[in-house]
């Protein structure tokens, strides 16, 4: 049971990165279906940077650099993907769904290439990410649940809390939400819609990229054997599940993580029914989607202009 909870948290935090990133993006009115691709690219950049650093540093690798370098590389990789997305959808006014899917194709290609070419060289780097706090073992189950994780897990929570604060309590957050709800009004109020959309998408993609890094370096212990695009789609589901609130997402992501791995922890279930269990996160998301739309409560809705482009000339 304890092992189950710990792994649910570990996996959940991967989702949390993705969903926080996608929430920021969606609040600006961008439905970025390229998140799976972004996570793939982020992970590729981060893992490869880690590999380069460890090769260069040989035995004198330093913990902070070994963690910091991949994180920065991942952020950059994600942000570049965000930049491509924003350039195509904001500046060149392309359709968001199509652009997002093209990004997913691209990102999956990059990560499959990395897997085929570099495969299993990342387990050494992953040790830096799974290193837990020193006093975790002294605190029994409490320590196991709260302190036994690697650095990225805590980073995910911090980012989610900060995002939640920024979105709901600051001027920037208010403007961002205005852009997503009604860009024409926001524009009239003097908010630079394009700038906000660019910034939100790039920030969101950078954060989502960390999800990819965390999945490979932390959850898979560096054994990168399969493509992680499925995780990306789950994070899009998680955004809906948590009704666009990053602070809910902390709990929501643990629930998702638990649902995702439940099938391998539950005993007495046939091999076949486990596949039905894996359906749960998606079914739950559909139910949430239906309920929020039927109840039609204002604060639980998707941003009104989600997926729609805004061109000043076409008002």
């Amino acid at each position, binding site marked *: 049971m304890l092992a189950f909870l710990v792994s649910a948290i570990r996996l959940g935090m991967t989702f949390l990165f993705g969903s926080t990133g996608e929430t920021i993006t969606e609040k600006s009115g961008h439905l970025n*279906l390229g998140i799976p691709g972004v996570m793939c690219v982020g992970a590729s950049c981060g893992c490869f940077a880690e590999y380069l650093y460890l090769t260069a540093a040989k035995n004198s690798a330093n913990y902070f650099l070994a963690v910091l370098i991949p994180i920065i590389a991942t952020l950059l990789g994600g942000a570049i993907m965000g930049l491509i997305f924003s350039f195509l959808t904001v500046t060149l006014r392309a359709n968001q769904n*199509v652009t997002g899917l093209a990004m997913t194709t*691209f990102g999956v290609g990059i990560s499959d290439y990395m897997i085929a070419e570099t495969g299993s060289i990342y387990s050494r780097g992953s040790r830096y990410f799974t290193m837990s706090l020193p006093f975790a073992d002294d605190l029994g189950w409490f320590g196991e649940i709260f302190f036994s994780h690697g650095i990225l897990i805590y980073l995910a929570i911090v980012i989610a809390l900060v995002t939640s604060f920024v979105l709901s309590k600051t001027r920037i957050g208010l403007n961002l939400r205005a852009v997503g709800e009604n860009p024409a009004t926001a524009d009239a109020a003097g908010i630079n819609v394009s700038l906000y959309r660019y910034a939100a998408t790039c920030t969101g993609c950078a954060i989502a990229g960390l999800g990819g890094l965390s999945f490979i370096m932390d959850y898979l212990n560096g054994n990168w054997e399969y493509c992680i695009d499925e995780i990306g789609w789950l994070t899009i589901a998680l955004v809906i599940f948590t009704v666009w609130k990053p602070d809910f997402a902390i709990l929501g992501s643990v629930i998702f993580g638990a649902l995702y791995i439940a099938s391998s922890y539950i005993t007495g279930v046939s*091999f*076949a029914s486990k596949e039905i269990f894996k359906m749960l996160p998606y079914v739950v998301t559909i139910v949430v989607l239906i309920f929020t739309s039927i109840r039609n409560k204002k604060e639980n809705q998707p941003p009104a202009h989600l997926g729609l482009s805004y061109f000043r000339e076409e008002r």
Partner: protein
Amino acid sequence: MKKMNFHIVKRDQVSWKYSFLIRALAILASLLVSAVVITLLTQKNPIAIYSSMIKGAFGSSLRIWSLVQNIAVLLCISLAVTPAFKMKFWNCGAEGQVLVGGLATVSVMMFLGDSLPYPALVAVMILASVLAGIIWAVIPAFFKAMWNTNETLFTLMMNYVAIQLVAFFLKYFVKSGSGVLTPMPEYGLPVIFNQPYLLNIITVAVLTAVVYVYLKKTKQGYEISVVGESENTARYIGINVRKVIVRTLVVSGALCGIAGLILVGGTNHTISTTTAGGRGFTAIMVSWLAKFNPIYMILTSFLIVFLEKGAGQVSTDFRLPSAISDIVTGIILFFIIGCEFFLQYKILISKNGKEND
């Protein structure tokens, strides 16, 4: 210094030559960028790689058949998503709709293959696959019509429910427990003129014509366009928007079901979770790049399938990971998506323009 002012104006009509030129330039540019990326990643000569792509797609009659067959399947799914897209209903669930269509087909083949006479079996297969596709598409459509539930996200989730359903089916009904279903060609769709793919290709060719006429020449096609342009206008002129949404998704789902039938009954004679193979998503791009015109879709689906097939050859010729194809496809898509801007808008630059805003 004078301030450069520019503004962006929508074009009315683009000449055939101009649009061809822009697209050709975009593809050229994307090939250049891909060449740079390929060279950086692999240190191989990009021209050799491109010529191997052409060989991979057209190298032998078998390859050409497989190319056309793949175009047919992708085209069929693209046709399926198009009516929904014209209505601005973002059906991202083609993947799932195709899979359940295939699942229905394979179930009929497995459980009724022995007991039904062959013509009846084929009829039941068609019926089952179409029905399954319709059910999968109408569920999100119903909620969209009644409560405006976000259809992009809903259909996206339905994909994974379908994938897990197939996974469950494979684990539960395959006796050996391997999770791989042995192909059952004896219960497949009929083979005409000794060409296993010919029937699929003819079916899709007919469907292309039908969808073209349906969208351009019928009242229902017109209603779809009106709802897509403006729901309020549609309501104002007395179109029952809810009915149109559900009806269009019935069409969309039925076509996806047929794609599933073609894939399972006419091609693989078995099913796996990757039978649809991402085509449900690729189809969205095919349809959009063709401006929702079924005739242009033949071209765009050709482009995508050519890239996939060619890149497959590249990876065997040069011992490269097959993922190269996805990377190149992605880059080319970015460019094609981007170039649409220059077809729809023009940039007016006024050098000594006054500061108006």
